[in-house]
């Protein structure tokens, strides 16, 4: 059975959401890994969860990236291990250099907490292979700093290498300014690295797992990961 490690930093607050999604909804082996640990043990996937690690002091994720466990995460990623950063986890992966770019305050300075539509821009990744390219999915966001930025060369590199996995869009799948909740460059909601084994996204797939709380589109991210690992899908 696939084993997923969920990192816990001081200030993480979506670690239990991720654990619930993986363990109880997907029925997989999940465990928490405290940020002071230096050994990830036997793990197939590392989830860097959302929250406010270190109170978002200095910059979101800037201090968490130096937590002892992150050295093991970088090693794990460099060996091809799957790493999924959600929200603050995405910010930590940007700060750690595992993903390119940086995150600014939302352009309107408001904390955005709502459900948004995302267009799947690429199904060629271990995190999106269960989606059809172009499909529109509905997933919640909850962040104050999700305004992704990189320079012109950085954006071109992301596009040239098919690294943009999700863009904010309207219900019809049109990528518009009105559907961009935070001012993110080119409506970017999620990207992967060049090796495609590290993904960061601001929206919360782990909070879109059960119809009773609004939708199940997030399950496809975890189903993709299982497919990539060659693990059986839950019933």
């Amino acid at each position, binding site marked *: 059975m696939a084993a997923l490690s969920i990192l816990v930093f001081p200030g993480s607050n979506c670690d239990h959401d991720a654990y619930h999604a993986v363990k109880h909804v997907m029925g997989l082996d999940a465990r928490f890994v405290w940020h002071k640990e230096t050994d990830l043990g036997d793990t197939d996937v590392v989830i860097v969860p959302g929250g406010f690690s270190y109170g978002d002091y200095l910059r979101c994720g800037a201090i968490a990236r130096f937590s002892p466990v992150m050295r093991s995460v970088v090693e794990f990623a460099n060996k091809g291990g799957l790493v999924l950063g959600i929200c603050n986890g995405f910010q930590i992966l940007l700060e750690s250099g595992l993903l390119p770019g940086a995150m*600014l305050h939302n352009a309107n300075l408001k904390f955005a907490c709502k459900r948004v539509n995302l267009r799947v821009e690429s199904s060629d990744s271990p995190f999106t292979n269960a989606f059809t390219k172009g499909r529109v999915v509905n997933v919640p966001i909850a962040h104050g700093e999700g*305004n992704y930025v990189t320079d012109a060369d950085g954006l071109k590199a992301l596009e040239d290498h098919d690294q943009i996995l999700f863009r904010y869009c309207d219900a019809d799948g049109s990528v518009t300014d009105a559907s961009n909740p935070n*001012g993110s460059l080119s409506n970017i909601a999620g990207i992967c690295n060049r090796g495609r084994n590290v993904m960061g996204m601001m929206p919360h797939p782990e909070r879109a797992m059960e119809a009773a709380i609004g939708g199940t589109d997030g399950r496809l991210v975890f189903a993709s990961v299982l497919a990539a690992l060659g693990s059986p899908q839950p019933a």
Partner: protein
Amino acid sequence: MYTAIIQITLRPSILDPKGKAAGEALSHLGYDAISNVRIGKYVRMSVAAGSEAEAHTLAKEACEKLLANEVMEDFTITIEAA
């Protein structure tokens, strides 16, 4: 012992939403002469070093490694004898 005074600002090409909001508020207050408001960070720290140059090198390293994110920020360092 030296004191390093560091100013970190968003690069000119990067939108500064906080600076923009403060700038608009100043404009509403009637300060027509004020524009281009940019908000950054001020860091002051003591540095034990044998020379001003060494203190500067250490402060620069601290900025590059942690205090600033050079994807979006610039920094300036001033070293004073403490």
